[in-house]
């Protein structure tokens, strides 16, 4: 009897390991959710009032990101230089594209933070609390209030 239980226990563990591995493999598969849905979910939680929508030319200038490096995007930022709030959502495609975009956004944030460091503590604090995540073919970049809520909304919508 004991031997049977042992075998059963071992089998369950093997199955669980398999599930673990399978979960890790699929968790980053490209999401099938439509871009609109993700956009809505994020924008509803983000503090995006007063921000203007930007076009692809702006993206190219800010991040040196060409139009063919992503399939869909949303970029909101303020007209005032002192307002650091910003929201960017990219639908990228595969893991490489996600990495590429994330890298460029990281460099952009670093530069921006350097400008405000030492001069404007509120702004640089908000900048350093930014969210930058790449998941399931999407990239989210957000500077603003309650970044955790926005990140959660983003993850859940995927």
């Amino acid at each position, binding site marked *: 009897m004991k031997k049977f239980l*042992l075998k059963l*226990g*071992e089998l369950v*563990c*093997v199955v669980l*390991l398999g599930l*673990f591995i399978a979960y*890790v493999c699929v968790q*980053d598969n490209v999401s099938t959710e439509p871009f609109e849905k993700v956009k809505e979910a994020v924008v509803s939680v983000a503090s995006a009032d007063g921000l203007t929508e930007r076009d692809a030319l702006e993206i190219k200038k800010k991040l040196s990101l060409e139009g063919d490096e992503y399939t869909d995007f949303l970029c909101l930022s303020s007209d005032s230089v002192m307002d650091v709030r910003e929201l960017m959502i990219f639908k990228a495609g595969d*893991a490489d594209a996600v990495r590429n975009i994330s890298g460029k956004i990281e460099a952009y944030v670093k530069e921006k933070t350097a400008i405000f460091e030492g001069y404007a503590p509120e702004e640089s604090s908000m900048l350093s609390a930014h969210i930058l995540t790449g998941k399931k073919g999407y990239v989210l970049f957000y500077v603003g209030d309650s970044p955790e809520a926005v990140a959660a909304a983003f993850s859940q919508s995927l």
Partner: protein
Amino acid sequence: MVFSSAAFLFLFLPVTLILYFIRLFPSNQARETAKKNFVLLAMSLVFYAWGEPFYVLLMALSIVFNYFIGFDIEYHREKPKKMKCILVFGIAFNLISLGFFKYSGFVVDSINSFFSLDIQFTAPGLPVGISFYTFQILSYIVDVYRGTVAQKRLVPFAAYVTMFPQLIAGPIVQYGDIEKQLNERYISREKFAAGIIIFIKGMGKKVLFANTVGAFYTQISELEITSVSAATAWIGIICYTLQIYFDFSGYSDMATGLGKMLGFDFIQNFNFPYTAKSITDFWRRWHISLSNWFRDYVYIPLGGNRVGAVRHILNILVVWALTGMWHGAAWNFIAWGSLYGVLLIVEKYLLKNILPKIPSVFRWAGTMVVVMIGWVLFSKESFSEAVDYIKAMLCLSGNAFFDSSAMYYISTAGLSIVIMSLSALGYFAKMPRIKNYRFNVITTAVGYTLVFLLCVIYLISETYNPFLYFRF
């Protein structure tokens, strides 16, 4: 969680020690030890989950599975063939788990570049400490198979695998070494005090030494490699050599100290490796627990040195390639390990008679040069970067031998490097002491308290606090 952090020192550790030492069963020693094991297990799981909230489940799964395997092997003791099958099954499970979570990305990348494919695969994040706890679990089931150990209760076994002092960064503890202590241990105040002292020593090595010299190495490594003078390159690699030693041995000391505070004695993991006078000697002093593990569980089962020369050489190469691979999922680590394998073979077979005739100073210098070049390979992300660096060291990349920048580093880092080198070579340990016992105890206590305060000061103001061996 990292030992050298405020959260660990001022929150986790006090809470754990209080829970550990509160006496629930004053008259029953066995129950008291069981309670200690339970507290250790619970707090270790919290410790691990703090850094890996998801992968703590993987570790728990491994523990439960291998616990079953242990029993299974024991039940089939009469049937050696079946027993072996079960052992293989258990080893396979552990290796697959380790292999997937640590090496899958590396394997896919290598296949892609070798066969010019483009398989899309996002490698899983490496669960911290997986190399360490997997090796410990493997040592357990193999020892059960060999009949040298057995543990019927889950809690002590789980406590062995998860115990937070050595979970993240070693030393790798073989179950046999600790079995007795799991079942009964005594913690005298001397042992606890010794634990504190060794812990502070380790923390000082990591926070005061490794981080400082590591910052200089980072500065130098960010310079344009073609314009770096040979002297600067050497200073850089000396900094890295010191950094990785104090980082890793510091962490091992912290683990040993914490272990002692909890009543466990771990084996020494480092024994002044930079005093070694040959590669063979070096590896008897560096990461001793890892070499021991490979010796006991790979080298000896493969036949060790009781076979013909050809097989012996093959054994060594296999063991060292694996050692390299254990350190990281990249080709330069495998190359680093294999390089040492080759050198060991050379020492054993070709230089066996020549070496003793060379004056020990030259043997030491030669060993150190080899070790440092090895670290270049270890530290760089790619072969070409490592080769570029070595070229700069040897003045082969068209650079100057010495320049003003090298002088700048000597004047700003020099004193630190000298102090740390003396320490690494053991001069401070071997200093003659005043022969008054009470005086020694007082100065030790005061001295280490100051070191501790200094570490805390550095920790609060430090933004640069990496641990190099954390890829495991």
